[in-house]
């Protein structure tokens, strides 16, 4: 009967995985709109924009050194800010999305609609990803404007930094979705997300630091430890993009370039994308298995 009364839709079907792209779009738009209505996303976006702009200008002031276009503390600080902000934005948006909807009851309402779980999940993921990307793009855009005005920076190098940042933010967003799927309350989800952020940003690296000082691991072991953390993957990619070498990062960086050569940037981007895909997939599986309420 339903096929008689319904116009055929853009149904995408992979096994049990059924999606109606129209619904995905609608939910994505709705999610984007809700995300942009939230003040904290703008708080993050403006905070990131102001810092990025300030940092891009800080080193350009005097004495003609700007045009030398080197990679100094300024660029290092920019990477630092990205390392702090991008995962924070991704994790908190990701954790808040599904948990918040569940807490408000809108998720149950949405699931009561004739849309599949896949529609809901991927629509929300897409909407949140676009929201995060546009928040970051605002910051990067303003900083790029400042750099262009000062005739500094190189477009391709800068773009590679932007791409790696997007990938990092998406990986963090996916982790946030895993948290948000499991949590019942939005506050709990955000809390767990902050702990994860703290581990990624500080605790993990402090651990690596301790192991490096006490055990003096071989370069390949050290590199492996770095590659576990998506933040370090981002950092390797960003520095390689800016420099086309990882000498700055000492023996582990040199080993990475020696071992992987020209494939290194693709490997690093692939690792970040892998984190995003893995976590989104895990989050979807959890979401799919969970009860309605």
């Amino acid at each position: 009967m339903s096929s008689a009364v319904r116009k055929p839709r853009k149904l995408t079907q992979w096994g049990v995985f059924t999606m109606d792209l129209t619904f995905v779009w609608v939910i994505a738009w709705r999610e984007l709109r809700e995300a942009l209505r939230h003040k904290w996303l703008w708080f993050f976006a403006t905070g990131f924009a102001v810092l990025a702009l300030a940092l891009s200008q800080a080193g350009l002031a005097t004495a003609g050194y700007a045009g030398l276009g080197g990679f100094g503390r300024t660029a290092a600080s920019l990477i630092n800010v990205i390392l702090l902000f991008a995962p924070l934005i991704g994790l908190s948006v990701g954790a808040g999305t599904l948990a918040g909807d569940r807490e408000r009851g809108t998720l149950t309402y949405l699931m009561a609609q004739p849309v599949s779980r896949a529609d809901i999940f991927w629509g929300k993921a897409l909407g949140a990803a676009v929201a995060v990307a546009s928040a970051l793009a605002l910051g990067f855009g303003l900083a790029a404007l400042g750099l262009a005005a000062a005739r500094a920076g190189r477009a391709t190098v800068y773009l590679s930094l932007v791409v790696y940042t997007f990938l990092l933010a998406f990986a963090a967003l996916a982790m946030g979705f895993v948290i948000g799927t499991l949590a019942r309350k939005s506050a709990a989800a955000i809390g767990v997300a902050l702990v994860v952020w703290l581990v990624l940003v500080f605790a993990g690296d402090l651990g690596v630091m301790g192991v490096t000082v006490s055990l003096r691991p071989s370069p390949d072991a050290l590199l492996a430890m770095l590659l576990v953390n998506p933040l370090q993957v981002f950092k390797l990619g960003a520095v390689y993009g800016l420099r086309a070498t990882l000498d700055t990062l000492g023996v582990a960086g040199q080993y990475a370039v020696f071992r992987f050569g020209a494939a290194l940037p693709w490997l690093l981007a692939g690792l970040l994308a892998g984190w995003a895909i893995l976590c989104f997939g895990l989050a979807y599986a959890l979401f799919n298995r969970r009860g309605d309420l």
Partner: protein
Amino acid sequence: MVVILHALAHALALALALFTPAPALGSDAYTGPRAAAGNRLVVSPAGPYTSIHAALANARDGDTIEVRGGSYRGPLVIDKVVTLHGVGWPVIDNGGQGTVVTLASPGATLRGFEVRGSGVEPDQDHAGITLTAPRVVAEGNRLRDVLFGIYVANAPNAVVRGNDITSKPEYEQGRKGDGIRLWYSPNALVEGNTVHETRDVVIWYSEGVVLRQNSIERGRYGVHLMYCNRARIERNRLLDNSVGIFTMYSDDTIVRENLIRGQRGPSGYALGFKDSVNVDVHDNVLVDNRAGVFLDNTPFGQGYARFERNALAFNDVGVILLTNARGNTFARNTFWENVEQVSIQGQGGAAASVNTWQGNYWSDYTGFDADNDGHGEVPYHSERLFENMTDRVPSLRALIYSPAAQAVEFAAATFPVMRPQPKMTDAAPSTHPMLLPDFAAPQQRNNAGMAAVAAALLAGSGLCATLAVIGEGRLTNRQNDAPGRAVVGQGVMLQVEQLTKQYGKTEVLRRVSFEAARGEALALWGPNGAGKTPTELSSSRLRSMRARLQYIRCTP
């Protein structure tokens, strides 16, 4: 008057040749007879001489052999005091055998030739041009497809000027020959050459050598100086080599006004000194190298090493001092945005006071200049805990730029108990960076690319925000208005049959059936716990319900 004009024109042409990139090194700059006492013999494909060897055989000391275009076979050994003068880039090609041209007579000159096709045996020193006599001159030549470029062996006062040198392109760096190699040739002058994609420029066992205004790019050792006292290295450009200028066991060296940028090899020092003494390094610009200055056991013995008014910018490390480097003076330098400004490496750790730091500018200085005398009132200390850790455990560099490293620095700065020993102290640091000298001024670049990137990012961000606001409503409306989406038939919108819901073993709904027509309002009425909510939710596909649901159309 005419003579003066002529000299001026010549100087101008020479200057042009020196300061323009290699291909522009026109032979026109060298046309016209010089003040040669002897005869002029002309070689060209059309005669009178058709071979350089024949002309050389007939030449006498003091003659000039003018070679006009054409290609000639080597090898050529110039054993008379003659000037070979190429017009229109005549080629001397040895077809991949031995050394192409040898200047073996004191004062002989080779000028304006393209020299190519040497042999490939490094242990036989196969070179484009070999100078083996005092005061010989190789000037304004172009060297291609040669193993070594210009090999100066036992040729005191030799002149190597304005040549453009590259090695065999098919070999990897270590297998190539040196662009220029000087061996036991005191007081030689190496000036205005362009050396690119060769192995090293080597200056060994030669006193009083002057290296001036050379451009050395993409090689291994830009300049390698060993056992050479009284060398002067000035106004050279060294770009993208593995190492810039490395000096070993050499005294009384002057290094000034060089631009050294992008030395990025495993060592990657712009300037390195080992066991050297009485070193004067001033007004150099060292940019974007792994390390600006590297000092190993320098100054060596009694003597000094002075570094003044140098700009060290954007290097990974500004200055690396091994703990045996004591007694250096760093004054009025500018340390601009080096990732690590000063690093002290090696066993034992040196006291901060063994070297002198006076009035340098530090881009990370946080003090102030209250009396406006251009010097800060607060000393600059380089005391960074994480840097000290990386100096001790170099593989920790893997973690620089990471927030954890920042956290360590922050902890060190905040809690005095963790504060590390200062590496050095500059009591009255300068608060004004030195201006970049003209020779290092960066080219103004057209930055349309950056502007485009900025525009694209901002536009993308704005577009997403705009679409989010207006786009969703339009999409939903379009869907609602879409023809064919409306229900055809009897107007039944929802049909629920045999709806059953259980919470555990408690059955709340048992086989409830109802349907709703288009435009119809359907109310669920009942006391608390009657099962209204499950029924409402079951107008859907929630999985915890069991029902046979004929779902037709629902618009939220």
